[in-house]
């Protein structure tokens, strides 16, 4: 099962390596990772997507909680939440396809953030599925490169799954 885990940590040097070292040292996998400051600049949130059966994920969350610099761990599997990811894609379509590419971007509520003589760079935000779908769709037109941010997630207000 894939889990999105949100980790509230002290915003100090070395904390990222404590967290990533825990994953590598115990043989857990990190599929994506994003880190950023929170409203309190003394803390950051790391959002990690990982895969494992229930026992593995239970160990991961317990081990994370055990780190002194970790303040709180939330497994979004147990919480109703919104998640988003962003991708920047540089496409180099043939001249006759340029309009088609723009239309597709529009359908996916993408934005063109840069345009050159031969390329468009667009920004797409959404759930992972949507981003994957867009990438598949745009592939035939010629993707030069893309960069994904990794997932971020936030809980919905006051709703817990199963209640």
């Amino acid at each position, binding site marked *: 099962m894939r889990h999105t885990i949100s980790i509230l*940590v*002290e915003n100090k040097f*070395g904390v990222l*390596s*404590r967290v990533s*070292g*825990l994953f590598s*040292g115990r043989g857990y996998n990190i599929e994506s990772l994003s880190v950023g400051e929170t409203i309190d600049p003394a803390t950051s949130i790391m959002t990690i997507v990982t895969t494992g059966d229930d*026992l593995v994920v*239970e*160990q991961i969350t*317990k*081990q994370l*909680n*055990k*780190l*002194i*610099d*970790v*303040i709180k761990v939330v497994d979004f599997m147990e919480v109703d939440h919104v998640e988003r990811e962003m991708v920047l894609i540089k496409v180099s379509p043939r001249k006759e396809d340029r309009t088609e590419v723009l239309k597709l971007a529009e359908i996916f509520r993408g934005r063109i953030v840069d345009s050159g003589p031969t390329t468009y760079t667009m920004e797409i935000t959404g759930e992972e599925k949507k981003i994957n779908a867009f990438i598949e769709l745009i592939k035939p037109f010629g993707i030069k490169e893309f960069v994904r941010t990794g997932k971020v997630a936030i809980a919905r207000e006051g709703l817990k799954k199963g209640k």
Partner: protein
Amino acid sequence: MKKSGAEILIECLKKEGVKHIFGYPGGVVLNIFDALYDDKDIQLILTRHEQGAVHAADGYARASGKVGVALVTSGPGATNTVTGIANASMDSIPLVVFSGQVPTLLIGNDAFQEADIVGITRPCTKHNYLVKDVKDLARVVREAFHIAFTGRPGPVLIDLPKDVTAGSAEFIWPEEVRIRGYNPTYHGNKYMINQAAQMIAHSKKPVIMAGGGVVSSEASKELKELAELARIPVTMTLMGLGGFPGTHKLSLGMLGMHGTYYANTAVQNSDLLIGIGVRFDDRVTGRTNAFAPGAKIIQIDIDPTSIRKNVRVDLPVVGDVKNVLKDLLKAVKELKEQQWDAVRNAWLKQIDGWKRERPLSYQFVKNVIKPEFVVEKIYEATKGEAIICTEVGQNQMWSAQFYKYDYPRRWLSSGGLGTMGYGFPAAIGAQFACPDRIVFDIAGDGSIQMNIQELATAVINKLPVKVAILNNGYLGMVRQWQELFFKERYSHTELESGNPDFVKVAEAYGAVGLRATKPEEVEPVIKESLKIKNKPVFLDFVVDWKEKVYPMVPAGASIDEMIFEEEEKKEKKLKAVK
């Protein structure tokens, strides 16, 4: 008034009640060593290797129940501590290790004697710090001792750049420690504890499995009370020895790979297994899917990650072992009147049968010293009251089997990491912690050579530490595996041809060396060593090189698939097990 970083450090150590530091000087810690030079309250014990310093601090911590402290320089001094730190981490021993570091401006430049010790020790410490500003020093030291000693104990490293100890600041001792990410659970959940009491009441064949957590939370008294009240037999892990009296009628001795027949058999036949301060290590459980197949498992531990890590658990109780046992005792007492004796009679009788069927034993051969015999004689001569340290391998297993530990903190052995070279420096640390107690290191001829340089530390400090070398001329435990599972191909385990004369080595350092080559010499040599009060003694016991540790559960087998000495003799062929 401002103080230097080094002075602040010393003040902090005094506030923490530190009396002994085990250490080794070097360039970037000169300020600290200079500040210690005139100090009357703190004694620095110079070891001959930084690994020795950390093991000594570890032995000191285990014997005293206090935090052990070590101080080393940067680079190689710091990297030499890694084995000792990893050892303490695996066995949950509270240590604070101070390492020097190059000045903050040079960090990252590959400066002389620079090593990223915070990076290196990150996975083997409970927590570690790099102090970048002298103003943070007092707070960091305060936090480090708190983290090392509370919750599940463990080692904490503090890296001190030279300019931090040379710099100056006001000394402000933080009276309180507040770390928002660190809040161990000390009290068990009441509902869970009541459930546990119910399970004990309904169980016909319960077994308690006590581990290092009983010792570190000082819960021996509560454990004994519970076992006696509800008439539950107790087996101990290697780390738990002494947590329950080894001579008690309810004691089953150690379980696991080299555990007793009756302990392993009782666990496998139990209907309730109560794990107290244990982490179900693979050396204890054998093949986990065949471990205690008919038992419900209760696990009591302060560290949630220990629970359900290796085996299924039916009822977890997270909390400090002592507190949980107190509450559990109360809950058990509140149950409606139980006729514990009547309920347990059949089970205890069955266990007594197993005890009679296969007690721990060895075969006495004329004119040959059996290593088990040496351990027994040490037990008799010290009336079971000595502190026994061990190295790792056969010496460790025989010491666990044939010495009965009635008290906690008298058994100091590298359980998790299995560090050869641990026992001797640990014995030195233990002797500093308990100057009036007899301290033995039971060693092998291989292990003792891994930290033999600490003889100098013991001699110069007039420590009467005794080192009983069970000298079989081999890396005995590895040789045992080669004999049983590798067709007697003794690849690189023979040591005798390169061994020194241990008596002469001792004498060269100014210690006493004694030797026994026949069984009748064993007791006199031990008694002789006990008369020596101001020097370390090496006791070289030339023992049967063929002797193996039995019973034995091959790696990967279930713990009731035990090999016994007589069986092994009957059919030499044994299936090689991975």
